[in-house]
């Protein structure tokens, strides 16, 4: 199999679009169901995220007046493409893509693209609420990226290489634990869940930064969010869960770990109320900063 084919398969089939989309819908359904059950409600039916996306695909697209059509329509596509490409790099068992030196840098860059798209989507839409959401998203990304990046970079420091496969082969140690905690600290804000759901405050600023999106572009944003959830949970599992020599067992362990992480994050989201932007920013720069410093120190002490 040539390299081009392996990339195509990785992006389109496994672990890309064809498998990640249903997995993302499953995880989104799990989160929504868990929130509902924690609130004593029945919750959505199993196929709900799928129905949401299919319905949006069948709807009309309303483009606001005075908006640049090209950018407006390209943003969801770019967001989806970046997330899928990022997922294709993650060395899940059976991923056909060869590991490149420095693919962590590429991964971290691709993971920033959807955030960038959200910010741009807010500003492009010319809606005042969308602009507020975009501003919040931009500022928040400056905050949560500190622990998030440090968690990955610390692991790269331990491995001595910016390569995903090298990261997996690092012998398990205390740095894993510290870095995992730091990663988990950043996870709720990355997933835009409750204490840090500041950018998508649904009743405060009406909706998130895709307030002016409708129909298929909105469906692509929803799909991109679903795959981003898969990406974040599987990245956590791949980097911080020790691998066994058997790939199928690894896969099951990774999926279960992803669901467990989501369950914990959802529990936190249900139990807390939304913070203000300044509070979240301060939280991430003080506590996230302390956690990052400890993690980096642990890599040096070892």
């Amino acid at each position, binding site marked *: 199999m040539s390299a081009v084919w392996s990339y195509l398969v990785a992006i389109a089939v496994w672990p890309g679009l064809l498998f990640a989309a249903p997995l993302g819908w499953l995880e989104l359904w799990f989160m929504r169901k*868990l929130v509902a*059950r*924690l609130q*004593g409600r*029945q919750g959505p039916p199993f196929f709900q995220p799928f129905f949401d996306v299919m319905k949006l695909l069948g709807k009309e697209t309303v483009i606001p007046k005075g908006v640049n059509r090209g950018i407006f329509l390209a943003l969801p596509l770019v967001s989806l493409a970046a997330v899928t490409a990022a997922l294709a790099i993650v060395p899940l068992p059976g991923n056909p893509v060869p590991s490149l030196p420095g693919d962590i840098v590429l991964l971290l860059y691709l993971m920033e693209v959807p955030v960038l798209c959200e910010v741009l989507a807010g500003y492009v839409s010319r809606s005042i609420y969308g602009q507020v959401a975009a501003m919040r998203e931009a500022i928040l990304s400056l905050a949560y990226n500190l622990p998030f990046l440090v968690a990955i970079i610390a692991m790269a420091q331990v491995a001595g290489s910016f390569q995903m496969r090298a990261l997996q082969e690092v012998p398990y140690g205390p740095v894993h634990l510290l870095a995992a905690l730091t990663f988990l600290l950043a996870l709720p804000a990355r997933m835009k869940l409750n204490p840090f759901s500041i950018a998508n405050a649904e009743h405060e600023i009406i909706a998130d930064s895709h307030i002016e999106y409708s129909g298929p572009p909105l469906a692509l944003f929803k799909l991109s969010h679903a795959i981003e959830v898969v990406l974040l949970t599987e990245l956590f599992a791949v980097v911080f869960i020790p691998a066994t020599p058997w790939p199928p067992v690894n896969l099951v362990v990774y999926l279960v770990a992803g669901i467990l992480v989501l369950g914990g994050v959802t529990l936190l989201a249900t139990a807390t109320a939304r913070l203000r932007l300044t509070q979240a920013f301060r939280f991430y720069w003080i506590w996230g900063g302390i956690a990052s410093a400890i993690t980096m120190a642990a890599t040096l002490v070892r």
Partner: protein
Amino acid sequence: MAMLKTILGNLLRPSRTRAPADMPVVPPTYRGALGHDASRCTACGTCAFVCAPKAIHFTQDPGVSVSWHFFIGQCSFCGLCEQNCPTQAIHLRSAVPGSMNSAGGDGLRLESLIHLQPCTRCGAAHVPLPAATMDALWAAGAEEVERGYCPECRRWAASARLRNAFLPEGATPAAEGGRHDR
């Protein structure tokens, strides 16, 4: 922590959600759908008079019937009509009126037809009294003939009875045939 305890408690208990087919029952005193009993209605018009949003009105088909019209889309379910109805022909039932697809037309409008009856004495079309009222007025059936009278003839019959009571024993009663003006 108290919040965590609450939500974990929710997770362990079954959900409190009711399925759409199994919705909570409405309290019996709930003022829901309006019902009109044409056999009790005397078409006095009190309900139309007390209705604040003017949801009730009457139309006439002279000599044949009187119609009671009710537009649900204008009702505020205050219950004044039920309170003020002298013959208890209007009842606010606790059933919740269902949603409907048709516009301000058929589904939202109720019509109840009250048939007029000819007076057994003078032949004038009139709204008959409710059966319960008639039973209370003429329980023994002594003056059964008065049951079919129009209000004017009832008045005439009552005054004739009064006049006859003053007459001495053996005198001839008042002549039958004094017609009321129309």
